């Protein structure tokens, strides 16, 4: 390496470090603020402590929103997983000419801007006479996360030997038994990984949810509403916990993704 190249690389690392500070700075700030009292004059640096974590219960609306988010996420992941499993298994068994078309449709909400997906669902629900509620939010999340789960399940299914399914059928199992006892056990890691990633996605989803939410807000929507008046310290505390949990989930998801890919 010449001196010029070494200097360039060092400079690039300096820029890179700055970028990482930019990426993590915002979240870091919220976490720091959650440990202090904030008054009109600014931050009271002497007030360090976990007092706001102890007072999380003072904000029942916030906790209700968190509960809604967890409920929506869990329902959406279960529904989307069932649907994705069915679709992927159907496409894998036998020659399906509709497969490219189906995959194109499933991937649409993933590629199109969230605002388009949100408006489409909003307009369709209104024409159907479906009131906005957590149910419409859940349907919206199913639409969004279907593609990820389908893709991950399909990758795993593609790596399975066809002979396994054929052998099972030859030995007298019907399609359902084959799926349950031969295919499903081998999909477990793919399902866990995609479920984790999908749940993280649903947990933070804001731009589609905004169009579909009714009287019961999810956490991001509630946070958005609170942002106009500024976050109170107990909101900072809750957000810090949420950040910790989602980042842990994402890391777990990424690690099991690496494993799933390695096992192929």
């Amino acid at each position, binding site marked *: 390496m010449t001196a010029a190249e070494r200097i360039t690389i060092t400079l690039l690392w300096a820029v890179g470090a700055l970028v*990482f500070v930019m990426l993590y700075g915002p979240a870091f700030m919220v976490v720091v603020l959650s440990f202090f009292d904030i008054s009109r004059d600014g931050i009271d640096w002497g007030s360090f402590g976990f007092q706001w974590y102890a007072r999380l219960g003072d904000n029942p609306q916030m906790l209700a929103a968190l509960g809604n988010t967890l409920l929506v996420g869990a329902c959406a992941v279960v529904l989307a997983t069932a649907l994705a499993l069915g679709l992927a298994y159907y496409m894998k068994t036998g020659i399906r000419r509709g497969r490219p078309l189906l995959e194109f449709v499933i991937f649409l909400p993933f590629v199109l801007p969230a605002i*388009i997906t949100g*408006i*489409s669902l909003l307009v369709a629900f209104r*024409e159907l006479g479906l009131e906005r509620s957590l149910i419409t939010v859940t349907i919206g999340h199913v639409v969004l996360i279907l593609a990820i789960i389908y893709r991950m399940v399909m990758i795993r299914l593609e790596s399975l030997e066809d002979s396994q399914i054929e052998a099972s059928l030859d030995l*007298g199992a019907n399609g359902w038994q084959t799926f349950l006892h031969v295919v499903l056990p081998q999909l477990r890691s793919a399902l866990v990984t995609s479920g984790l990633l999908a749940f993280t996605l649903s947990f933070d989803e804001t731009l589609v949810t905004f169009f579909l939410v009714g009287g019961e807000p999810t956490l*991001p929507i509630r946070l958005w509403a609170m942002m106009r008046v500024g976050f109170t310290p107990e909101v900072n505390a809750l957000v810090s916990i949420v950040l910790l949990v989602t980042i842990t989930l994402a890391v777990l998801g990424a690690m099991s993704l690496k494993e799933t890919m390695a096992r192929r």
Partner: protein
Amino acid sequence: MTDLSLAASGADPAIAGARAPHRRWLRRTALRLAVYGVPALLILVPLATFLVYSFWTTVDGRVVQSFTLANYVDFLAKPVYRGVFTGTLWLASIVATTSLIFGYIIAYLVWRLEGRLRYFLLLLSVIPLAMNYIVKIYAMRNILGYNGSLNWLLVHAGLIEAPSKLFIFNQTAVMITMAVIYLPYAILPIFLSLERVSPSLLAASADLGGRPGQTFRNVVLPLSLPGSIVGALFVMVLALGDYLTPQMVGGNQGFTFGRAIWSQFGMAFNWPFGAALAVVLLLSVVLIILVAAAISRHARVK
């Protein structure tokens, strides 16, 4: 063994009788209907409804279901909307370009590393994707604001005398915030396109006497750039459709096309017009996707 499997398979035509093929046909059709019907119902039907909506109008706040091009004519006739549209395209291109530059730097640095550190830094660059979007906007607003950390830093460093209002509630604020929020979306695709550069080419370049800088300029960059641009275009799509970032940090000056669409579904309550604006957005996004697809196809042929 053979006897057993025959008996268990139940495929004994003598017992099943003549009704079996008919029932099987019925089952297969029902299955096919479900497989294609459910995604169509969840995704295609809403999209179609939304397209149809853009050709309707409102009279006194009520939707009138008669075909008209009035919404599109309105969009084209009003310079305000056209201005916001081109302004947002410009904004999204800047966000995409910054994410290309900084995303490439990060991805390249990580790509050069080996072993655990490489995996760790890659993870570190995608984790921000899992951080709550609203929280990121909120924190960015605190950083960029009049009493924010950026102003505090600049004043204490002696670069400016008094806190500046230049960083909040304008287009610059929207641009900076979007650049920070959407950068991680670019890093991963750029990293993957670097990964696709064949190691044998790098070895060949080194064998032929190419210094690292030359290898980068003549081998790595040309081969990884198409995939990186595709990643940046993905960021552009995200920036184009965002309506909450401009609303929260943009103030009155930071009005974007996404906000214009959103306001039609909120305060303005003109859904058909909002749908028509969204169709315009959809068309530009489709165009961007086609460009991205063309770039990746071209790169693969080479």
